[in-house]
């Protein structure tokens, strides 16, 4: 995961950058609720100038899964 992506996730989820790992998910992150999910999706869509499909959103179960999707856009 690159620093730019980690910084975005860190800011939205309100966790330190060094706590952003591929395994981080709503199950393991207390601040990752439904509002954080929506904010994360909106932030990523704006930053990467790409609208995610509902099928892609359904696959965003962890930071690692999100990075896999996002890194394919770069």
């Amino acid at each position, binding site marked *: 995961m690159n620093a730019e992506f980690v910084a975005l996730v860190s800011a939205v989820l309100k966790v330190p950058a060094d706590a952003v790992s591929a395994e981080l998910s*709503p*199950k393991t992150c207390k601040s*990752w*609720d*439904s*509002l*954080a*999910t*929506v*904010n994360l*999706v*909106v932030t990523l869509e704006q930053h990467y100038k790409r*609208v*995610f*499909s*509902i*099928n892609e*959103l*359904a*696959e*965003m*179960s962890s930071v690692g899964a999100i990075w896999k999707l996002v890194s394919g856009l770069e």
Partner: protein
Amino acid sequence: MNEDMRNDNAFPIAGAYAVGRTVYFRYPTDADAVGAWHHWFNSPDVTRNLVAHYWPNTPEDQLAYVREVRKSRQRLLLSIIDRSSGAHIGVGSLGSIDYVNRRAEVSLVIGERNYRDGFRALECLSMLTEIGLCKLNLNKLVATSLAISTAGLQLDTLLGYRECGRWHEHAFVDGKYVDCVLLEMFQRDWFNSPKRPKSLFLAD
């Protein structure tokens, strides 16, 4: 075979009405009604952002509601099942279905706290929207959300629902009146939306 065993051989998941990647919808059973479901509508963290539900909810009340609604063609009520665990995690519905003016009201409750990660809600709302606007060929769906329910409003907006009005001081929450925001989605917009599921049977 009891009523709850109907459609066990249906493709691709027993009893499924629509299947997404993380959840599927099926008809609500009597067991659903007297299970976790009736507890959700007694829980303040579920009912806080709902416009109704002020009275205690009993298993008998929930069962009577489900049995009544199952007979109705003005409300399509569906149980939401998490695909990975098989748990009944919430309910979604299309209510006040008007076949002349081709509109309905969409609503969604994820009752189980552990599944309120936003992703399931997004997929559920997308599936309900697809059912309403494609399967039932309605022209418009309307969603309502209390203005204080930021997550609910943003979720609707992310899927492309647009604010079309507001009922001022519509609900009394935590000692003060709050507005209720009305949002709408037209069939023509949904059909061009990237948030539209490719199929209502994503059984992979």
